[in-house]
């Protein structure tokens, strides 16, 4: 119903698709306004490339043990061994190579789990918000019950029950975090549904399915994109927590959380085994978060100061 007449009739309350297209054209200028989107997005992109090309970038085999070379300090220390830039852990494995390979697990979990949670949460939020009635009551009750579980405890429990593996970690995050999307999408849809342009579409004889798909969904997409970016940061943390507790991928495969847990054991002898993966985890979480918040500001001018 991209009727020009309609747009003229309700200029203030007609966020139709033409608006989205106009916004896209303004994208370069808007990114310049929010440079952190570029910086954070660049960091995430770099991390994705590192994860994909880990085999070429990593100076050593992340699993290769050499007990003669255990707990070597980082390169700037006089005791350091050339070729081990960030030192080695208690089994003589190269810390930098393990961090590089660890990004594979982190990035895989971030993207797959966030998209999974986003899909389920968005669909349930759309149905619950748009159709109301029984579906809304059922979904809202389910969200209430879900919110009463401590998320960290539930994720540990789920992975313990499913057996520690990459897919269990992803399933656990999807099962727990779909509510984040569902709640926001539902309230967004309820808000959209009450705007004049939806009433106008009804008056013009549009079916409910058409209104949902052509009018409401496009207006919910930006919010979902923001949530996706934030959820990726959360997923990276949850994976780190699980591998810290020893419940992520099969042992031996490097994960940041697993490295941090190993480093915790020898923190007084070799702080670098603990500190470097922690720094990388910190930067990654910060990047996803800044990307999400930067996108939010771009999409919603009202949240800008």
């Amino acid at each position, binding site marked *: 119903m991209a009727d020009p007449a309609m747009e003229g009739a309700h200029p203030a309350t007609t966020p139709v698709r033409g608006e989205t297209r106009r916004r896209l054209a303004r994208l370069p200028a808007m990114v310049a306004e929010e440079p952190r989107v570029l910086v954070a997005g660049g960091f995430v992109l770099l991390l994705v490339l590192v994860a994909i090309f880990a085999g070429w970038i990593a100076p050593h085999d992340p699993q290769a043990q050499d007990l003669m070379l255990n707990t070597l300090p980082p390169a700037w220390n006089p005791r350091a061994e050339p070729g081990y830039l960030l030192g080695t852990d208690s089994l003589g494995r190269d810390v930098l190579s393990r961090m590089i390979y660890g990004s594979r697990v982190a990035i895989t979990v971030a993207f797959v789990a966030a998209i999974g949670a986003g899909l389920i949460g968005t669909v349930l939020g759309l149905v619950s918000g748009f159709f109301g009635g029984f579906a809304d009551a059922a979904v809202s009750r389910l969200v209430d019950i879900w919110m*009463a579980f401590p998320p960290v405890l539930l994720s540990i429990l789920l992975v*313990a029950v499913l057996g520690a593996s990459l897919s269990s970690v992803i399933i656990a995050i999807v099962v727990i975090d779909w509510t984040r999307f569902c709640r926001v999408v539902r309230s967004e849809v309820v808000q959209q549904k009450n705007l004049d342009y939806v009433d106008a579409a009804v008056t013009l004889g549009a079916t409910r399915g058409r209104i949902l798909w052509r009018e409401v969904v496009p207006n919910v997409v930006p919010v979902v994109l923001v949530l996706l970016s934030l959820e990726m940061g959360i997923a990276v*943390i949850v994976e780190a927590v699980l591998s810290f507790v020893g419940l992520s991928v099969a042992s031996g495969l490097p994960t940041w959380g697993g490295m941090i847990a190993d480093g915790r054991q020898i923190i007084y002898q070799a702080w670098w085994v603990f500190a470097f993966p922690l720094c990388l*985890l910190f930067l990654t*979480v910060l990047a996803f978060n800044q990307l999400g918040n930067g996108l939010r500001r771009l999409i919603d001018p009202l949240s800008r100061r």
Partner: protein
Amino acid sequence: MLMRPLVALKTAITAAFTLFGVAVVTFFLLRIVPGNPIAMMIAPGASEADIARLKADYGLDRSIPVQFWIWLKNAVRGDFGTSISTHRNVLGLIAERLPATIELTLLALVIALALGIGAAVLSMLSRRRWPGSVVDNVNGLLLAVPDFVWALAFVLLFGVAFPILPISGRVDPRLSYDFATGFTLLESILRLRFDIAANVLSHMLMPALALALPLAAVILRVLKAALETETGQDYAVLARIRGMSRLRIVVQEALRNAMIPTLALTGVQFTFMFGGTVIVERIFGYPGIGNLAIDAIVNRDLPLIQGLILTFGLIFIVINLLVEASFALLNPRLRHG
């Protein structure tokens, strides 16, 4: 009267329903997955007869709905069964560990409120000067980084780089204590044993701060926005015209009104913080229910897991009810909702 009886009844029924839902989801989750729960219960090398006996002991030879009915009947009477790994009463075990977690979260809440409110007032009084912009930038960082990462960073910073705080436990074992309750901090203060209190506090400071920082960031953001709205209101502008100082307007007038939305949100976020104790207690080897929960899962201690998750669910729901009640108390317009 906080709420009308009908509203209170409706709230209580919703809470009971949610708690029941938590119990159902946990119970079936632990049993529907193949190989469970017997696989989670048996020690390696158990014989067929052992398994059969164990099954009968826990009523696991019956159908799952019947099992749930038995469990529910016992739970309503306050009997949550016996922990498999410690052979102790689940409720007793939780009651023993719960005070440590309550003290930790309350300390974290106090720190978060102090930091959040202090920073919000500071940044309001010094807008467009350097303290204000520093607060804004630090807050972006605090909002982004979760308690897990803070806890690990503190271990590195205050435990190793500048070793000023203990990184594990609740009290130095050399300090003998035979306390009557689990509220070690509170009891040592009441008994005027300030040496023990100081030691307990030094153990609690890092985990409490890690839990407090994300909450403080949320409090700061919401309170600051509310203060900005309030200081733009007619009454604040009028007070300014009549010569009242900015400090007095913010602290005496605007703060009170701005606290209503802030406290409501603090309550909601407080439940998230309670969930965060699970991993933070683990990192610092702090003997609360969060640490107990991870032990229970690692040891595949089914009755204890069930009891602990229900405890967390109950705490979440109680906090939410308290928040709603206090919201009604603070904002009279909502009392008859």
